[in-house]
């Protein structure tokens, strides 16, 4: 059985096709708590890992509605309700001059919520990763693809998972102890 501070198993890959193939196999084997770390974006990896479409657009939508409401509300309240100003004989709340502000604040609201939503979904900022002291893991920022399978995955077993990773073409397969107790 896994000891209490076992982080998980790690494997290195150097060939991108072998990596994608391994990801497909791990997905089909039913692993849930695992990840692939690559130095650059690999096309088609999302699909191979079985990652569903991001829900980020719902964050964007909330930001869009918020931005548009703010724009309309602020212009109506300041210009047509609280302090009426006649500017060039235009109406107090004409849709024409309201449009640039509506557009800009809609875009701003959408952008802010998308960026914040992205941080949230990527669990940023993450100050500590249980693999971070591992030498193989560090190579993921340089020239190696790294697959990690967490020890708390239901299908994890120190021996079985390591031999699975080896059979998928992973090199330097080993288990990682978490530095945190």
């Amino acid at each position, binding site marked *: 059985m896994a000891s209490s501070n076992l982080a998980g198993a790690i494997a290195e890959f150097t060939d991108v096709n072998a990596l994608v193939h391994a990801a497909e196999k791990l997905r089909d084997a039913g692993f849930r708590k695992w990840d692939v770390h690559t130095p650059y974006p690999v096309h088609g990896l999302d699909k191979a890992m079985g990652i569903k479409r991001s829900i980020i657009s719902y964050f964007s939508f909330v930001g869009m509605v918020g931005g548009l409401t703010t724009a309309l509300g602020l212009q109506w309240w300041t210009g047509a309700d609280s302090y009426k100003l006649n500017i060039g004989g235009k109406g107090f709340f004409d849709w*024409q001059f309201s449009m640039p502000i509506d557009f800009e604040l809609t875009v701003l609201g959408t952008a802010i919520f998308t960026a914040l939503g992205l941080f949230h979904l990527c669990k940023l900022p993450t100050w500590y990763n249980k693999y971070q002291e591992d030498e193989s893991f560090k190579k993921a920022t340089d020239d190696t693809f790294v697959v990690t399978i967490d020890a708390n995955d239901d299908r994890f077993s120190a021996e079985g998972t390591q031999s699975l990773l080896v059979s998928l073409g992973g090199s330097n397969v080993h288990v990682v102890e978490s530095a945190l107790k």
Partner: protein
Amino acid sequence: MTSVNLGSTPLIAKMQKVGFALIVLGALGLAAVFITGGQERFFADYLLGFWFFTGISVTMLFFSALQYLTRAGWSVSVRRTAENFTGMVPYVALFAAPIIYNLFSHHSIYEWSHESAATDHLLVAKSGYLNTTFFIVRIGIYCLLWFGMLRFLVGNSVKQDSNASDITPTRKNWKRAAPWVIVYALSITFCSFDLLMSLEPHWFSTMWGVYTFAGHFVASISVLALMTIWLYKAGLLRQYITSEQFHDLGKLMFAFSSFWAYIAFSQYFIIWYANLPEETIYFEFRMHNQWEIWGYILIVSHFVAPFIVLLRQDVKRKMNFLIAGAVIVLFSHFVDLAWIIIPAVSKVAAANSGEQFTMGWQELTGWLFFAGVFLLLAVQNYKKRSAVPIGDPLLQESVHYNS
């Protein structure tokens, strides 16, 4: 790889038949307009069809230049479809001849070419640019530039087909695409000044070039998407075209119908805010006299409808939704140009002979005629060359592309 010539497929044969039918139908319609509707209306409808398809043909060239400029991988398998639809480019001068003839007729749709322009202070001041000789010279220059662009870009693209191991022709296009894009930008801008904006010579808009470009570009992408889908549905080019290409064409269609709305609103907004009589006359006239209905249709069909139809990510990969989007966009582009041309010419016709008109079936005739010409000349290109740039160094990237 071997060349993929679709010249003898049922789809291309069908296109040819449809093209012939449209030409006959359009020519009969134009003749009917000439006899019953008056010469001004005839020339207006002719100009409408002519500029709709010339704009798309030249913008297809621009699309090709843009792919070379950015060395785009995704588009290689559909780029030749765009290049095949440039068939009208060598004949622009021929098709512009009736419009040039029109300048000298009593029924000229261009007010600045009338004798009475000599007594109009503003038109006298503008006569250094707006005179018949310079107009003809400019049209000639556009034709030459476009022909040069066609020969260079499409010429090199086709040359690449025969020898995949030597990529000199593609390199030439990569190097020279940027200047051709500038040539396109300037020529399409000035041509839209000459053919469209000068229909109302007292009026001007500095956003005119980019406004008409936005319409042409989104219409070109729609034609490209429609043709790609038809090829795919007919079982052709299936090893080259994937849902990734449809997705990207959908994105461009979505983006540029929004871009059109952005530019159209900006143009309107600046004129509305400044409220100067010589600028507002354009919208003032079009917001009354029964023209306003087409303006409202335009807002819905050129922006709201494509925006809603093409917004979702998965929808851009579904061919039937793309067809719906493309048809809506092409209809809107037609209404857009009609809304520019027909009210202006109606005004001129009223001054010439007292006959005013509103939109009717007549406006479709020129479009039908040139739709036929457009299709037939594309068919010629499909018979001549491979339907996929098989020698292109980026073709494999396009086939395996994953967005």
